[in-house]
C-alpha cells in the first residue's frame, strides 16, 4: 500500500471509522512501527480537538490543511479516499473534526481578547521600549521558584523571556507596553521575584 494511502487509512483509524479488517491491518502496522504510533497520536489529537496541547510534528499537515484537502478532493475527485472520507461512513467524523477546529479557533480568539481586555492601557515610564512597543524588565527569580511558578507568572503578565538566566538568576523579560505597569506589579508582588527593574532605554 502506498504511503499516502496508508496515511489516509491511519487518519480514518484515528477517527474510528474503519471496518474490522482495515482496523486489523492498521493495528498490525502500528505494532511494528513506533513512528506510525506517533503519527497516530497526532491524528487522534486532531480528531479530539486537542491539537493545541501537542506540538505539531513538522512533517505532518495541520488539521485545517487536512480538511481543506478533503473538501477539494470531494469537489474534484469523486473517487478515492477523499470521496470515501466525504461519504456517509465518515461524514460525521469529518464534520466533527472541522467543528472542533472552528471551536478551538473561537476559544483561542476569545482568550486573546480577554487577555487584552484585562488591563487598561497605560504607559510605563521610564523603561526601555523596543521598536515593537514592548518594555523590557530585568527580573531575578528566587532560586527556590519552580519552573511552573515562573511560567504561570509570565502567562499572567503576558511576558516573554528574551534573555537569561544570567549567573545570578536574572532574566530579561519583554512585556507589551500597555501591560507594563500591570506586569511590574505582578512581578513585584509574586513572592518569587527577588529583583525587578525596568530596563533603561539605550542612551
Amino acid at each position: 500500500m502506498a504511503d499516502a494511502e496508508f496515511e489516509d487509512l491511519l487518519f480514518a483509524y484515528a477517527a474510528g471509522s474503519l471496518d474490522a479488517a482495515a482496523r486489523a491491518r492498521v493495528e498490525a502496522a502500528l505494532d511494528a512501527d513506533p513512528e506510525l504510533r506517533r503519527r497516530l497520536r497526532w491524528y487522534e489529537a486532531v480528531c479530539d480537538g486537542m491539537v493545541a496541547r501537542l506540538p505539531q510534528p513538522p512533517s505532518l499537515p495541520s488539521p485545517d490543511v487536512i480538511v481543506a484537502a478533503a473538501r477539494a478532493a470531494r469537489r474534484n475527485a469523486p473517487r478515492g479516499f477523499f470521496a470515501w472520507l466525504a461519504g456517509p461512513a465518515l461524514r460525521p467524523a469529518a464534520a466533527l473534526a472541522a467543528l472542533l477546529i472552528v471551536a478551538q479557533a473561537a476559544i483561542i480568539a476569545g482568550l486573546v481578547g480577554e487577555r487584552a481586555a484585562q488591563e487598561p492601557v497605560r504607559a510605563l515610564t521610564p523603561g526601555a521600549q523596543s521598536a515593537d512597543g514592548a518594555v523590557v524588565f530585568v527580573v531575578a527569580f528566587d532560586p527556590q521558584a519552580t519552573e511552573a511558578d515562573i511560567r504561570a507568572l509570565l502567562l499572567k503578565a503576558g511576558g516573554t523571556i528574551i534573555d537569561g538566566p544570567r549567573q545570578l538568576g536574572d532574566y530579561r523579560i519583554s512585556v507589551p507596553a500597555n501591560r507594563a505597569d500591570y506586569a511590574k506589579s505582578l512581578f513585584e508582588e509574586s513572592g518569587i521575584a527577588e529583583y525587578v527593574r525596568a530596563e533603561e532605554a539605550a542612551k
Partner: protein
Amino acid sequence: MKWGFLLATLIAFGVQGEERHALVIGNAAYTAPEPPLRNPVNDAREISAALKSVGFEVRLALDADHAAMRRAIRAFEDTLRRKGGVAFFYFAGHGLQVEGRNYLVPIGARLQREDQALARAVDATELVQRLRETGSRLNIVILDACRNNPLTKQPYAARGGSGEGLAPVRPASGTLVAFAAEPGHVVGDGTADRGLYAKHLARTLRVPGLPLEQVFKRVREAVEQESRGRQVPVEFSTLTGSDFYFLPR
C-alpha cells in the same frame, strides 16, 4: 579630631569631583566543607575604612551568604546605574576556578562538587561584565580570594581543568582586575589579624599623588617583599585615558 575628620571628608569628597562607590565583601565564617578563614572580615573592614577616607561611598557586607551577596551586588549596580562614576569592588574570602572562570564563595555554599559553584557561588567573570554594563566610568575589581580552593582536596576536584588559585581574566574595557596572588597560586590566610594584601592596599591607596597603576605596583612590591617572594599580586587592565588618583596630591 572633629575638624580633622571634616577636613578629610572635604578633601575626599572633592577628589576629582566624581561619584565614587564601593562594594566591599569579607567572608570568613565558612562552615564545612569550606574551611573557615581568619582574616577576610578584618581585611574588608580595613579596605572599607581606607576607601571612605578617600571619598568612596562604601557598602560593606560581612559573612554574606549567597542571597546577601546577590542583594549587595544588585544594590551596588543600581547605584552605579543611577550615579555612574568610579566603581570599586573588593572581595576577601574563598575563591575557586572552575573551567577557567572564577567563583567567589558565599558563606554556607556547602560545595561538594565543582559544578555546584555555578548555582551556589558568584561568577566573578560575569560580575566584571555586569559592572561594565552599569555605565560606570571606571571599574576596579579586587579579588583577595586566592586562598586554597576548598574543593581541591576532594577526589573529584581535578576534573574540569580546575586547580588552585584563580584563573586569569580578560576584563571588559575600562576595568582593572587585581588578584592578591598570581593566577594558579594561592595565598595564606595570614598569620596576624589581617591579610598581607589588604594591609598594603589599604595603606597605599591613601598615599597622595599616586595614579591607580602606581598604587598596585607599590602594593605588589610590598607584598612580594614581605612574603619573601611567595606572594606576587597581579593586575589585568583595560584602562585607557586619563589617570585616576585615589587621593590627588
